[in-house]
């Protein structure tokens, strides 16, 4: 399957362009979003990416013909490269002292030191922004560190918490409720509220495609 478009109610379409969220899916998603941003169908309110899907929301009654859109977007997918190169390279200092660090180590059958070593020796890629403002799903987590989310989410997770949820790792940009395993914290701000007020995309510290490394530190400099 190259691409399939399902209706999502009368005014939205869900474009499914891959079956699993791998590097090829990411490349397709980027190509589709770029295309839709530069050639928006009339009445398009917004386009949003998932791992394998793109949601197109339209003004009431302005949803375009599915078959026509399918033909157009299929061409975009066909021409998408197998992979897109990394965006910016970022390093985030991390103090590995999270409350779930031991749990992650126990589930993996590793020592805490090995968990830190594994988590900080990978270059991750931002594959998805979503869930809450600026929350970036990072791909590339060592399989041994894949850890199920908590059965009951915490009502409040501190901003800057470095966490593992299933096969992804992430940093909580703000203090929010959260169900991921907290393994550490960074002091690099990933949501700039002053820029949120002026409505700038620069409010978000991480962008799709960024390459991210976690650097273990004992404490932060400032």
């Amino acid at each position, binding site marked *: 399957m190259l691409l399939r478009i399902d209706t999502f109610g009368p005014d939205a379409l869900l474009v499914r362009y891959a079956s699993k969220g791998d590097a090829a899916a990411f490349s397709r998603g980027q190509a589709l979003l770029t295309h839709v941003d530069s050639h928006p169908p009339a009445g398009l309110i917004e386009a949003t990416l998932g791992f394998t899907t793109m949601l197109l929301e339209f003004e009431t009654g302005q949803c375009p013909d599915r078959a026509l859109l399918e033909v157009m977007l299929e061409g975009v997918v066909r021409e998408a490269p197998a992979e897109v190169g990394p965006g910016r390279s970022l390093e985030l200092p991390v103090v590995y002292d999270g409350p779930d660090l031991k749990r992650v180590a126990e589930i993996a059958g590793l020592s805490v030191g090995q968990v830190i070593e594994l988590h900080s020796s990978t270059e991750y890629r931002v594959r998805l922004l979503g869930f809450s*403002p600026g929350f970036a799903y990072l791909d590339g987590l060592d399989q041994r560190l894949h850890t199920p989310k908590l059965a009951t989410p915490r009502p409040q997770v501190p901003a800057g918490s470095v966490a593992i949820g299933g096969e992804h790792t992430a940093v909580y940009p703000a203090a929010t409720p959260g169900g991921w395993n907290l393994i550490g914290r960074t002091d690099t701000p990933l949501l700039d509220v002053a820029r949120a007020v002026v409505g700038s995309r620069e409010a978000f510290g991480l962008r799709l495609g960024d390459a991210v490394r976690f650097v273990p530190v004992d404490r932060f400099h400032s």
Partner: protein
Amino acid sequence: MGEPILEIVDAGFGVALQDLGRRGWKRFGVPPGGALDRHAARLANQLVGNLPDAPVLEILYHGACVQARRRIEVALTGAAVSTGRPGDWHTFWLSDGEALAIAPPRAGVWSYMAVSGGLAGTRWFGSVSAFPRGGLGSVLESGTVLERPVHPFVPLPPAIGRRWIDPTEQRDYLYPPAFRVWPGPQWQLFSEATRGAFFGQSWTVSSRSDRTGYRLDGGPMSCAAEVIPSEPVLPGSIQVPPDGRPIITMRDGPTVGGYPKIGLLDSAQLSWLAQCRPGQRIRFVVAST
């Protein structure tokens, strides 16, 4: 700064500024936000002659008390005036120093108060809708003084005494309609029997409901696929988590989700659903064009 016009003397269960929300920021994880009951918020603005998107106060349940800092024309819609008496959604004046307290509503959850000329507020990504769960602003605390916008929208001529709205627009939240549901992207993952269980029973709105989502209690449903790769979610999406109890995504809900979606509540009825209280029973019907 603008002129002070209204003080939140007591925030009660909760008071927030809301407009109709933001567009275009979901791709960064920012939910649309905005008034949960857009119908009542729009009518409040219309009553006082504001643009539909002007910021209004969204008041949860009761206990809130506001005091005018100068003579202002206001309108109250939603739960606080879900009286069952036609003609109760209308404009009125508050004189300088006059207070208005929100009594326990007979039905409904959210009340909306619009002030002629609008209210000023901080915006995050274009909307005054704060999103405390995601680090953007907070609900209004007792003692907050709200100001008129620096360039207020020119309101109605002062000669108008008391505007009211068509009584058929005034909803009585004791009696919700059957909610129309469009098949969702994972409709096919649910068996015929499971779909039947969804539409065939009445569901109870759970007390674990808020601006991110309304949860439903009832006979649990089963689904073929427990989780799917996270995909974008629309407000009104009906997700079925592994425990089989549906969650209806509201306007502050996560922008992506990994639970299968059996359907999408018709967007015109999401405002109606927002006014259904925990414990209230609701039913769904299949929507069709």
